[in-house]
C-alpha cells in the first residue's frame, strides 16, 4: 500500500517536472537568452601582489601606512570607515602619541550633544572614536569601506582592479550593444558588475599624494596601497589568525598521530 501510493506520488512529481522541463527547453530554443554587454565585457579582478595574499599572508605596515594616507587624502572625502577606530591604528605601526595627534587632526570633528542647552557641538576626535560618518552630496551612494574587501569576491584584488580599471568603452562593445552607452554622470569600468558606476576615477594621475617614505606614487602604487589598507581594515586579525593557525594545526597533527597510534595499538590483535 505505502509503495503503491509512493509510486503514484513519484509519478506525479516526475510528470510535473517533465512538463516544466518541456517548457524550459522550449523557451531555450525559441528565445535563447540574449547576449549582453555585461556577460561579454565584465572582467574578473586582476592579480595584485600583496603581503596579505596566500595562506600565510600577513601585513606590510609601511604599505598600510601609505594606504591610510591615500584613504585620508582621497577616499575619505566620500567614503566612511565606520568599523575602524583611531586606536586601531597602533596595529599598523603608529605609536599611541602619533595616533592621538592623527585623531585630533582629522578634518571632520566628533559631534557632541549638550544636554543643558540642547545644542550639538563639535570636539576633536580622540583615539577611542571611530572614523567619522561621511556625508556625500554627489550622485550615487559611496559604501562604507571598512568591510569592502570581504564584501566582494576576491576583495583586495577587486578594489585594486576597480581603481585602475577606468577607461573608454571599447568601440567593439558600442557597435555590438548600442544600448550599453555609459549613462550621463556614470563612469565606465569593466571590473564593476554593471560596467558603469557613479564613482569618478578617484586616483586619476600619478603623484596625487606625496608619500613620506619616498615611494613613487604611481596610480598603480596608490591603488595597491589603499587596497592593502582596506584589506587590513576589514580583517585586522589576519596575522594573528595565521600565526595561531599554524600552532593549532601542528598540535592537532601531533594529537591525531597519537590517537592513531592508540587506535592501532588497542586493535592490534583484533581482525576487523
Amino acid at each position, binding site marked *: 500500500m*505505502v*509503495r503503491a501510493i*509512493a*509510486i503514484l*506520488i*513519484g*509519478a506525479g*512529481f*516526475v510528470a*510535473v*517536472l*517533465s*512538463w*516544466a*522541463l518541456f*517548457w*524550459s*527547453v522550449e*523557451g*531555450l530554443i525559441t528565445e535563447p*537568452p540574449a547576449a549582453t554587454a555585461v556577460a561579454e565585457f565584465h572582467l574578473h579582478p586582476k592579480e595584485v601582489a600583496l603581503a596579505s595574499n596566500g*595562506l600565510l599572508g600577513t601585513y606590510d605596515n609601511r604599505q598600510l601606512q601609505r594606504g591610510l594616507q591615500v584613504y585620508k587624502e582621497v577616499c575619505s572625502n566620500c567614503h566612511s570607515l565606520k*568599523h575602524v577606530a583611531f586606536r*586601531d591604528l597602533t596595529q599598523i605601526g603608529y605609536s599611541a602619541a602619533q595616533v592621538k595627534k592623527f585623531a585630533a587632526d582629522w578634518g571632520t570633528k566628533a559631534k557632541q550633544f549638550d544636554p543643558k542647552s540642547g545644542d550639538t557641538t563639535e570636539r576633536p576626535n580622540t583615539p577611542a572614536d571611530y572614523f567619522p560618518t561621511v556625508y556625500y552630496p554627489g550622485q550615487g551612494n559611496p*559604501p562604507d569601506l*571598512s*568591510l569592502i574587501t*570581504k*564584501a*566582494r*569576491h576576491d*576583495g583586495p584584488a577587486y578594489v585594486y582592479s576597480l581603481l585602475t580599471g577606468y577607461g573608454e568603452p571599447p568601440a567593439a562593445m558600442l557597435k555590438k550593444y548600442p544600448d550599453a552607452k555609459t549613462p550621463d554622470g556614470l563612469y565606465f569600468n569593466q571590473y564593476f*558588475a554593471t560596467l558603469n558606476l557613479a564613482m569618478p576615477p578617484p586616483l586619476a594621475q600619478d603623484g596625487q599624494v606625496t608619500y613620506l617614505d619616498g615611494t613613487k606614487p604611481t596610480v598603480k602604487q596608490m591603488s595597491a596601497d589603499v587596497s592593502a589598507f582596506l584589506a587590513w581594515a*576589514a580583517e*585586522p*586579525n589576519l596575522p594573528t*589568525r*595565521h600565526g*595561531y*593557525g*599554524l600552532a*593549532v*594545526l601542528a598540535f*592537532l*597533527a601531533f*594529537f*591525531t598521530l597519537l*590517537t*592513531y597510534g*592508540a*587506535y592501532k595499538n*588497542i*586493535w592490534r*590483535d*583484533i*581482525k*576487523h
Partner: protein
Amino acid sequence: MSFPWAKHYAPSNGFTKWIDERLPLPRLVYGAVGAGYPVPRNLNYFWNFGVLAGAALGIQIITGIVLAMHYAANGGVAFDSVEHIMRDVNAGWFLRYAHANGASMFFIVVYIHIFRGLFYGSYKAPREMIWLLGVTIFLLMMATAFMGYVLPWGQMSFWGAQVITGFFSAIPVVGETIRIWLLGGFAPDDAALNRFFSLHYLLPFVIAGVIILHIWALHIPGSNNPTGVDVKGEQDTVPFHPYYTAKDGFGLGVFLFIFAALVFFAPNALGHPDNYIPANGLQTPAHIVPEWYFWPFYAILRAFTVDFLFIPAKLLGVLAMFGSILLLFFLPWLDSSPVRSSNYRPLYRIFFWLLVADIAVLGWCGGSPAEPIYVILSQICAAYYFAHFLIILPIVSRMERPQPLPNSITEAVLAKKGGTSPAHTALSGSPVPAE
C-alpha cells in the same frame, strides 16, 4: 543492555558504589558509550560520523553561548555587534569563525552519516525508529542553521529570511496572513530577528534531546555494520570502550584538523561576500543564494517553473522542497528488500551512486544563478531524485536478486583477513580479557 554477553558495570570503590545506589549515572554511561555496549567488530570509518556529529553540536553550543554574550538581536545594531565580536571581543574572531564554519562542518558530517545509513540499509527493521529520529534531527538542524544565518543581519541574512518565510505565502488563501504572523511584520525586522534568535538558542538543546532518544533507540537493536548481517554471538562484537572510543578519538583528530584548517586559513571560503553588506530591505542582491548545505533543496524549489493545472508553480516548488526531505520518513517502508548492506545489492548499489551524483549536481545548480541551463539540469535531477525514492527503490527492492550473505560478521571478517576458526571470540588474545 542489548546482548546477553554485554559487560555489567561494577562500582570499583566505596564512593562509586555510593553513587551507583543513589543515582546510577555512571552505570548509564558505561552501558551507553562504555565497555557495557557491545558493537560489531567490523565497523569501518563511516561509523565515526555519528560521534563527530555530536562533537560538532557540542562545538556549536559552546561557541554559540559565548557569542550570545556579545551579540545584540536588534536590527539597528545586530550587524555592528557581530563586527564588534570580530574586532574587539577577545578571540571573538575565532568564536565567530568557529561557529560559522562549525555549522558547515556539522552538515558535512551529518550528510556523510545519512548517506552511510542509505548505503548500508541502517534505516531498515529493526532500526526504523533510529532513522525517524535522525530525520527529525536533520529537520531541526536545518531550521537552526537557517535562523542562525539571519542573525548577523547582512544582505543574505535579510533576503534569505525574506525568501524562506515567503514559502508560507504559497499556501492558498491564508498564506500571506501566516507569513506576516510568523515574521511579526510585513518584512523581516526586529520582531523576526528577536524570535529567530530566541529559537536559534533553543533548538540546539531540542536537538540534543532528540539525539539522546536517537542513541537510546540505537541501543535496543545495537549498531548495524558493513555486512548488514545481524550479530550472532559474542565473537562478532567488541566493547565500545576502549575499541571504538579509540577509533573515534582518531576520527575526532582528523575532523578537528580539517575544521581548524578552515577556521584559521579559509574562514570565509564557504560564506557569501554579500553577508558582509548590512541588511538593506530596499536593495535586492543580484543573486539570493542560501548557504551551501541548502543548495540541493533550493535547486528542487526552483525547478518548478510552470503552473500545473490549477496549482501555481511556487506552491509546487515549496511542496516538492519539503517533500524531498519528508519522504525520508517513509524510506524504511519504501525499501522492502530484506538485505541491508548495498555490498550485497548489485542493482540498488548502482542507483545509490546515481543518487549521490544526482544530489551533487542539484547542489551545483542550487548555488548557481537561475539561468536556463541550470534550471533544466535541476528539473532533470529533481525528477530523478523523486523517482529514486518513490519509484525505483520500491521496484528495485522487489525484483533484485541479492548476492549471498556471509553467515556471520566473524565469517565475513575472517574471509577477508584470513585466520583462525570463527569460533574464537573477537577478543581472544587482546589486552581486554573477554568474559
